[in-house]
């Protein structure tokens, strides 16, 4: 399971394909204050990044750095000021 809700945290683990986008969005809508933990996330599909941009939750970044982590993550949380 790539997207899971546990103890107030939405956990993204392993590769997160486009199909897991729907789950992520519905969990963020149900738990708007949940933290998204990406520590163990592998490759995360653009569709999920798009959801994170729009919902702008607090995020624990992935351990491995990719371009999305580098250029997008730092800006999530300041939604509205950069998009």
């Amino acid at each position, binding site marked *: 399971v790539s997207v899971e809700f546990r103890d107030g945290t939405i956990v993204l683990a392993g590769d997160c394909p*486009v199909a897991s*986008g*729907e789950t*992520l*969005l519905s969990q*963020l*809508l149900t738990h*708007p204050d949940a933290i998204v933990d990406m520590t163990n996330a592998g*490759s995360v*599909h*653009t*569709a999920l*990044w*798009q*959801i994170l*941009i*729009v*919902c702008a939750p607090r995020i624990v970044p992935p351990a491995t750095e*990719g*371009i*999305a982590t*580098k*250029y*997008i993550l730092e800006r999530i949380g300041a939604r509205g000021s950069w*998009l």
Partner: protein
Amino acid sequence: MDELLAQFIVEGRELAQQAADDLIALEREPRDRQRLESAFRAIHTLKGSVGLFPLAPLQTVLHAAEDLLGAVRSGSEEIDIEAVDPILATLEWTDRCIDEIEVSGELGPGAGRQAEQLLQAMSRTPVMSAGSPPAGNAGENPPWARTLFDACPAAEGPLVAVRYVPDRDCFFIGDDPLALAARVPSILNLSVHSREDWPAPEELDPFRCNLVIELVSSAPLTDVEAVFRLIPDQVTVVSQLAPTVPDPGRRAGAGAPLLTMTVRVDTARIDRLLDIVGELYTAKNGLASLADLLRTVEPGSAVARRAAATQLEFDRLLTRLRQGVMGVRMVPLAQTFRRLPRVVRELSGQTGKKVEIVTKGGEIEADRLIVEGLFEPLLHVIRNAMDHGIESADARSAAGKPAIGSIAVTADMQGDQVAIAIADDGAGVDVERARALAVRQELVSADIASGLPEEGVLELLFAPGFSTARSVTEISGRGVGMDAVRTAVQALGGRVSMSSRAGQGSTVAVSLPTSFAMARLVVLEAGGDRFAVPMNAIAETLRISRSELVAVRAGLAFTLRDRVIPFVSLAEVLHLTSTSGESILLLVVEREGGGRVGIGVDSIGEQTEIMVRPATGLIRHSRGIAGTAVLGDGRVLMVLDLEELTR
């Protein structure tokens, strides 16, 4: 329609028009560097906007046009006139493409072939055959790329900027745009924007891509392009150009974002506002009668006085509101005038007559519908002038005139009307020939014709069916004559007349309102339908018995105060079935040329103050319809032109 595409349709047309204006000006002034730069910028921006959509043939052609103009720009001081024709053809084709996109959302089936022909035409121009700079590098970098390059000031060597606009449905076909972008080597910076405004999270469609990805890389151009080789239509890749010499035509600080105090609004929204104003007027009429009622029932009472005062205040504010909304609809006449040089240029090609057109007063503003509606009559007048008025170069030289003909379109404010004169320096109207033709075409009897003064003969030129053409030509003489001009101008609430001086030319004078005024209308019924007529068209109303009608020649008439007045039934004129019985309700109408006519209707209803808008769409060419009016309950009434209906 997709908002971005809708915006492109508006801007695309403006850019194509701008570039065409510049090119036509360049033909006259081949050394005008500013015009050349302006044309180049317009085509460059146009190409950039096209790149946002899957319109490959259009983009390829515009790219070639940009290259061609770029080559011209880097060449000699003067623009090579031969390069102008294919670029103008490209712009005209672009206009047609935009029309197609507006209707169907995509290019027509023949687009690929047409694009190929245009590309060939451009490649045949001398400047292109002499060798051209590499594609895509003509001119300066687009603004988005400059912004990206500017963000990496410390980088060495030329950079490559990428703007990647993934298809909205790209997730469905397995694309992962960020993963793809990550494969670009040596990324120095990357940013992500939304293509359209982000929706609220609960309205987000997780499977629809709304991203625009921009990045800068220090890798070679070919390595970057290789990453996107499967989706070239979604990506623009540009190489950083060496800083160009500042353009003297550009003001200092022009690189900074330009703050304009304007906003682009869909005209449908303004029309909706105008509809609401119309409804408010109907509500106002109700309020006025309520205030009147109170004055009658409780004269002098506090409540009656307050109602009267409130009503006056409401009136005042409503008038201001209407003026405000009408003001928003005002656009300069230049929007129509600027289309004319292209028309003249095209007609010059067809007739072989060289003609220059000058326009003045383009800054005068009028309602958008009036400015747009003016194009068609102007086109007819100019066609007529070029076909019949302006002589061949030989005849002109023989008459001691400059070889190049001239047409001047001049606008002036006269009171609340705008007067537009279209004057040519041609041969003028041959009054005796026109007189003879009118008789031959049975528009007037020989007796009457011989007694007509010159103005009277010129007036006959506006009669339906009048034609002076010796042969049917490509340009005019197809029965679309001055009567079409008069019909179109009258539909806009204006008047048109003509004057002419033998050997010196003709002038067509058009007088138009600048906006649509409020009119007092009477709602009436005929043949089971409801219509409206302007109050001021009606001299009086009366009721007569059917037995009072007598047959006179082909029609009916009745006697009113010892005068015989022709009678027509409105239902019959409109091809409806009249429902009136023995007793006939009559509107007596004063005709423009003198005399009266009685028009039979079934009933007369309420009076209302309402805005009449010119007829558009299907009913535009219908006879006898002056326009439409929206009633307070949303119903649309046809406003009749009784004068025309009973002609």
